[in-house]
């Protein structure tokens, strides 16, 4: 990057907040997605909206790529600076600006850690429901930009269901305000939802207004073990058909069960085809009633074993298996791909079987676990990125997994986003018209394609 341009960046944000040493740039060449790496030319950490605006105006004039970045924990290569340019580090935007108890909303800057927001609203008896696995590290801005989900997705949904308004800096540096604290607001195009999940390709989020919900008074956790995968699948369908929406309804497949048991020794039968982990939450009386109904459904669908947690310690024990799933799989091999192919929940058993077939056919190790209740599965492929021959097989298995998900009426991403990782399947899901529409939006808002170029909608 030219030195006068760097000087201009330094003038805008201050010398200390422009990193150009190779050793630093190498540390921004990646995110949590395996297989993508590219060095930026500079890492710029602005302190306020005005600085973001100035940086973008400059980058737009000079046609320099800009990649907004929070903690870089995302799983779609969404923050990898694949074309060089500027990584826009947003972690200095770390203030919770307001917790509005009367309106049940909070206003925060994008660099706030999601867990910190939850901690702050806890004292008011409120929660911000999106809770991705990286909740203790990920920034609010990153999770909103990626439309992140989490374990409570079945009952509570994903980020877009909680974002009420945004302040966004557009590619040319102009500042946009979308929606606000109104529960009912049908004026105009829904720009809030457009920018939520835009993965940094349409603008840089500088302020976020989110909806908060009352913290559930009670929770009850259960674990059911199935020797037959279809019985697990039928249980999922029957629970929902019984008009019960658990906060969480998770599944572990046989490969995951064996790996978890081997690693954490939590007492799972290794021959089981599936384990379901269920948590209902809400008002104590309702929780009791719903838990009893869930147990009934599990029994009717031939669960081999059912455990209901009586206290916090037992609840912890039940969730230990789920918590161990990713670490246990990740420890098997150096490289871990955690995908998030999602299908209508009735298709969960079929999807798991297809993943297993893809694993066997291409001789790769895949464990599947995930949010069965919302159809959001995490086929987790463990391999070694340094083994070229193995990686070819891995990518073939991945192709098969995503095309199957789309064939079953599913989607490429339940909560991780598209980024670069799943770009090549986008046309399969959206078709030519869908992609044309999305690219038209991208070009209208970012005509020079400086914002996270090449991601989500590809080249345009």
């Amino acid at each position, binding site marked *: 990057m030219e030195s006068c341009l760097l000087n201009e960046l330094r003038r805008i944000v201050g010398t200390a907040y422009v*990193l150009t*040493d*190779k*050793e*630093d740039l*190498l*540390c*921004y*060449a*990646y*995110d*949590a*997605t*395996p297989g993508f790496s590219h060095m930026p030319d500079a*890492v710029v*950490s602005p302190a306020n909206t005005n600085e973001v605006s100035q940086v973008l105006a400059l980058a737009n004039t000079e046609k320099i790529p800009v990649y907004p970045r929070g*903690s*870089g*924990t995302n799983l779609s290569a969404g923050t990898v600076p694949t074309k060089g340019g500027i990584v826009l*580090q947003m*972690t*200095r935007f770390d203030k919770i600006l307001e917790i509005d108890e009367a309106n049940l909303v909070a206003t925060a800057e994008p660099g706030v850690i999601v867990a910190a927001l939850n901690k702050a609203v806890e004292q008011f008896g409120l929660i911000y429901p999106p809770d991705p696995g*990286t909740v*203790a*590290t990920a920034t609010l801005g990153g999770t909103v930009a990626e439309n992140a989900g989490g374990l409570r997705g079945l009952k509570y949904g994903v980020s877009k269901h909680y974002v009420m308004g945004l302040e966004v800096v557009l590619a040319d540096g102009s500042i946009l305000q979308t929606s606000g604290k109104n529960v009912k607001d049908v004026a105009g195009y829904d720009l809030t939802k457009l920018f939520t999940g835009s993965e940094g390709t349409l603008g840089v989020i500088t302020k976020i207004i989110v909806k908060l919900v009352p913290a559930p008074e009670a929770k009850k956790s259960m674990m059911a073990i199935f020797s037959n995968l279809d019985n697990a699948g039928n249980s999922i369908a029957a629970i929902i058909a019984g008009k019960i929406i658990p906060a969480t309804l998770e599944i572990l497949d046989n490969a995951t069960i064996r790996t978890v048991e081997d690693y954490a020794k939590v007492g799972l039968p290794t021959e089981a085809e599936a384990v379901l982990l269920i948590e209902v939450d809400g008002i104590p009386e309702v929780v009791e009633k719903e838990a009893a109904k869930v147990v009934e459904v599990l029994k009717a669908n031939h669960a081999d074993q059912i455990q209901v947690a009586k206290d916090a310690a037992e609840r912890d024990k039940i969730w230990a298996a789920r918590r161990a799933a*990713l*670490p246990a799989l*990740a*420890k098997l091999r*150096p*490289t*871990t791909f955690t995908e998030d192919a999602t299908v209508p929940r009735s298709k969960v058993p079929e999807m798991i079987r297809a993943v297993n077939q893809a694993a066997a056919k291409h001789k790769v190790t895949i464990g599947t676990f995930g949010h069965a209740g919302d159809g959001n599965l995490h086929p987790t492929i463990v391999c*070694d*990125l*340094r083994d070229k021959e193995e990686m070819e097989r891995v990518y073939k298995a991945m192709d098969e997994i995503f095309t199957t998900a789309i064939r079953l009426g599913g989607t490429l991403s339940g909560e991780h986003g598209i980024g670069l990782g799943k770009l090549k399947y986008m046309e399969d899901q959206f078709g030519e018209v869908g992609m044309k529409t999305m690219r038209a939006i991208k070009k209208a808002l970012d005509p020079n394609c400086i914002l996270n170029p090449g991601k989500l909608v590809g080249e345009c």
Partner: protein
Amino acid sequence: MKEDKKLLTDIEDALANCMKCGNCMEVCPIYKEIQTEAAVARGKLSLMEAVINGNAEISAGFDQRMAMCVSCKACAVKCPCGVKADELILRGRQAAVKARGLNPIKKQVFALLANRTLFDFALRMAGLFGPLQMKKLPGRMAVVARFPMPGLDRRRVLAPFAATPLRSQFPEHINAAKPRMKVAFFTGCTINYVYTDIGQAVINVLKANNVAITIPAKQHCCGTPVYMSGDVELAKVFAKHNVETFERVNADYIVAACGSCAEAFKIEYPELFHDEPDLQRQARNLAAKTYEISEFLVDVLRFRQDTLGPVPATVTMHDPCHMARGIEVTAQPRAIVAAIPGVKFVEMKEPARCCGAGGSFSLAHYDVSRKINDRKIADIASTAADTVVTSCGSCRMHIVDGLVQNGRNQECLHVVQLLDKAYEAGKCLQFKQP
């Protein structure tokens, strides 16, 4: 292949296991303050990978970034893949030393440290002439520099060097009337030359429990500061000396009153000699009978509680990193505090969060270490305790500095000093009884 780069390729598989999930960011005290990727384990591991792949050199910049780590091990404990990032970062430092040589100031300090006689002489002189340079702060075991000194922040509060080192204050062997056992005391440099009050307390407490003590005169620095800086060869020289010295004294147990010194004996020494089987066997034998003082008093000695007198104090505890995550001794110091009559114990928020000392880290990066420490001081302040106890001289010094800088009046002691006070108070009780 050059030897420096080979040091990294040896750990290539271990580096590949890092899946860049970023979980280490949650717990890294340095990342919390400076918020750059190179500050956190994930970044440092990537930098090492870049060197292996030929995308980077072991440059001054590499060296600087490897140095930005307090070795608190929080990342390693947090890592879902079990990557021991703290050890890998030490390997990065080792490669930097191989490639670029040791930093000139460290080189001089280590050269002095390596010459046991000269080191002893220098620190005795510092103890004698220190008051000329250092001004004592009233009411504390703390001093500040009167004049600027190279490599030292002038604001920084230190502890005075002892006029007479601990090992010169006591004979090599201290007998007990009917000794239950013989214990060798590894004093470490901080206790020998600076915090002799901790050493005195160790001796008192062991005596109160009828233990014969030997304090080998020829013991060396445990080597941790040298090892942490990446000079593994010199660390091995120290380790070998200590292993041979302590084997000769043939004690039933070895105790240290510092988490890092205990960790050196218990964990580092056997690992250092992985290619020297005889020495490794000796090191393992010693490791098996080495205990940190609280661990020893509680698990081995089951210290006397009937002679404890009351110590009226509200106490909170800071767990040094090498106690909490190194040798994993946190219950025992609490058991000691709980046994002392009159003490009200208040747990602080995140007692095992690093205080920012990190051995020589706080010398080289005083500003960052101060910021980390300010959080610790705030946690201490929010407990309303009048006394902070810990189990490491280096943490004690850094916490005292933080208390002074933040205008706080709490006292900071080693756990064993509190116990010593209780035995002392117990003697008065006996005296008063008819």
